[in-house]
């Protein structure tokens, strides 16, 4: 398959939840694609819709709300797919790792059993072959003396090791796409560096696409090829990591980057975006960021800017994007 052919194509994805009779627009018009071996980052603050995006793709959100639009996975549409058929894809072709390594494993089962469970569900390997594969997987994610540790329970592993186990389980069935929801947020920086390295290495070796949700721009800078910035359920800016971080064009991306205390005189006041994100049940008519935006102009409060191409590979949803002239990135 051609390097640039997307394996996953999300087109106009909308997710709506309902609370006390009012509709919450959790996701609106999300479109992006992921190619083989590509690492795409989704960044934004809490509540911007990053995790819901992952859950809507893999069919975990539709039980709780309405998901519309198209999620094209190798020629098939996941949004309208029956649960039964979807189950053949969940965990086998598309795998997911969750944020909390402490609560995502069953504390009553050994790690080996949990690994084998995945293999039994998604492969037709024999019992002995499954055990070998389980050992191989723990080895692959860098857990020392793998064959013995299969008999251990989750509480016998540290946080970093548990996240490795999660990755091993996710990757056991050789998925073509990995959805990673803040995979390193609960970990120390030193362990974070090891886990990110591992995910990158595996993406490369297995030619797997990765969709990585994070709130940490440093993680994006160090691991992703492309990045999509989310605000209030929409993508506001998208493009290659290098370009977006060097020259952010959307005022929200600029604000997010300026909030990170880097290259600042010690103890100088940190920048913070004024105001708070809008509630999903009371989104402004125009651009959702307009009430907090310093570059807000007349049309911003009446119309909603659409995500449109500004230069090769760069998309921004803004009527008055930040000029590119001097490098204003950190």
């Amino acid at each position, binding site marked *: 398959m051609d390097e640039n052919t997307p394996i996953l194509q999300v087109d106009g994805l909308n997710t709506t939840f309902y609370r006390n009779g009012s509709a919450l627009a959790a996701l609106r018009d999300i479109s992006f694609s992921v190619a083989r071996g590509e690492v795409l980052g989704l960044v934004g603050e809490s509540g911007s819709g990053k995790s819901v995006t992952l859950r809507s793709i893999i069919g975990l959100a539709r039980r709780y709300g309405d998901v519309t639009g198209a999620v094209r996975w190798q020629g098939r549409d996941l949004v309208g797919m029956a649960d039964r058929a979807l189950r053949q894809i969940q965990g086998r072709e598309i795998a997911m790792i969750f944020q909390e390594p402490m609560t995502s494993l069953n504390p009553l089962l050994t790690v080996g059993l949990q690994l084998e469970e995945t293999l039994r569900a998604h492969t037709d390997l024999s019992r002995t072959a499954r055990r070998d594969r389980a050992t191989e997987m723990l080895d692959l994610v860098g857990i020392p003396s793998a064959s013995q540790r299969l008999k251990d329970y989750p509480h016998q592993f540290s*946080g*970093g090791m548990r996240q490795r186990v999660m990755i091993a389980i996710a990757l056991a069935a050789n998925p073509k796409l990995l959805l990673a929801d803040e995979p390193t947020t609960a970990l120390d920086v030193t362990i974070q560096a090891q886990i990110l390295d591992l995910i990158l290495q595996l993406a490369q070796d297995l030619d797997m696409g990765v969709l990585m949700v994070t709130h940490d*721009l440093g993680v994006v*800078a160090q691991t992703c090829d492309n990045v999509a910035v989310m605000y209030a359920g929409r993508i506001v800016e998208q493009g290659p990591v290098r370009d977006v971080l060097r020259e952010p064009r959307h005022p929200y991306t600029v604000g997010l980057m300026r909030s*990170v205390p880097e290259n600042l005189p010690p103890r100088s006041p940190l920048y913070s975006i004024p105001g708070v994100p809008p509630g999903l049940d009371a989104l402004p008519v125009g651009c959702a960021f307009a009430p907090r935006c310093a570059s807000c102009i007349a049309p911003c409060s009446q119309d909603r800017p659409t995500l449109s191409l500004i230069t090769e590979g760069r998309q921004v949803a803004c009527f008055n994007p930040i000029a590119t002239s001097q490098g204003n990135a950190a």
Partner: protein
Amino acid sequence: MTAPVMEIRDLHLRFPLGRSPGDFLTGRPGRVVNALNGVSLDLIRGETLGVVGESGCGKSTLARCIVRLYKPSDGEIRFDGNDIFAADQRSDRVYNRRVQMMFQDPYSSLNPRMTTGQILTEALRVHEMRPEADIPGRVAELLELVRLPQDAQHKLPHEFSGGQRQRIAIARALAVEPEVLIADELVSALDVSVQAQVVNLLLELQDTLGLTILFVAHDLRLVRHVSNRVAVIYLGRIVEIGDSETLFSAPSHPYSQALLQAAPSLNPDDRGRAVKLEGELPSPLNMPSGCPFHVRCRHATDICKSTRPTLQPFKEQGEVACHNVEEINTHA
């Protein structure tokens, strides 16, 4: 350099674990978690001292010892020259007022059934900060100080966002007019832009009120930004302490070097440049001999395995606990 407001000397804290049935059968002694292994440091009046390290290294334990939530097994903490663990109820009260702690989790550190007004009033009453008649006025002042609207008084904690709750926590700490604030991961649970607002507030209050702050956090960028000095802790021991800018721009201890390099840079061009630290923090149940870092250290030599290095002055205003610090830093 001014006089230290707090002196911590050779602080040890061991948590004994219960003996298992197996231990009883074989006559093994119970195991012990060595949470702090000889921490010594001075807190200078008016400074912000950052404390960094991996989870389980003893950062929070140190903070909790300082506010006497834990009693150390060995060593002493002197505040204004007096041992804080010497029993005397009246001076206990005074100490509790002068040294205040703020916690990480804004959801569990405020009583969910008390309004903000009640939370602040309680602090003022317990420490008899104001005559009863002046309390409402002081509550209003405190809310203004942390930039919360006046109607916040009548609201319960669940009505506030995470950032606002941490402001309440700050107001509660400041209510009793402390001299030292212990901030244990105060902003870790917050989004970056909210984090910035709370940090700005804290720095501003420190300047206007002349507070001394012990800032415990795992976010290295943030610690660098707020701190005057920084202590790097590894397995319950300080491995390097010194001026924040010097330490962050040129760390000397191999552990500080590895820790700082592990923080992901915002510049995509730095990709793959960092030397990755292998392995994980050894268990404090089973401390390595000699230098606790030698099992993960690229520069470890024989002496590191047998002898524990002590903090020695190295470079301007810094101290490092490493046998090979000279060689490591001349080659680099």
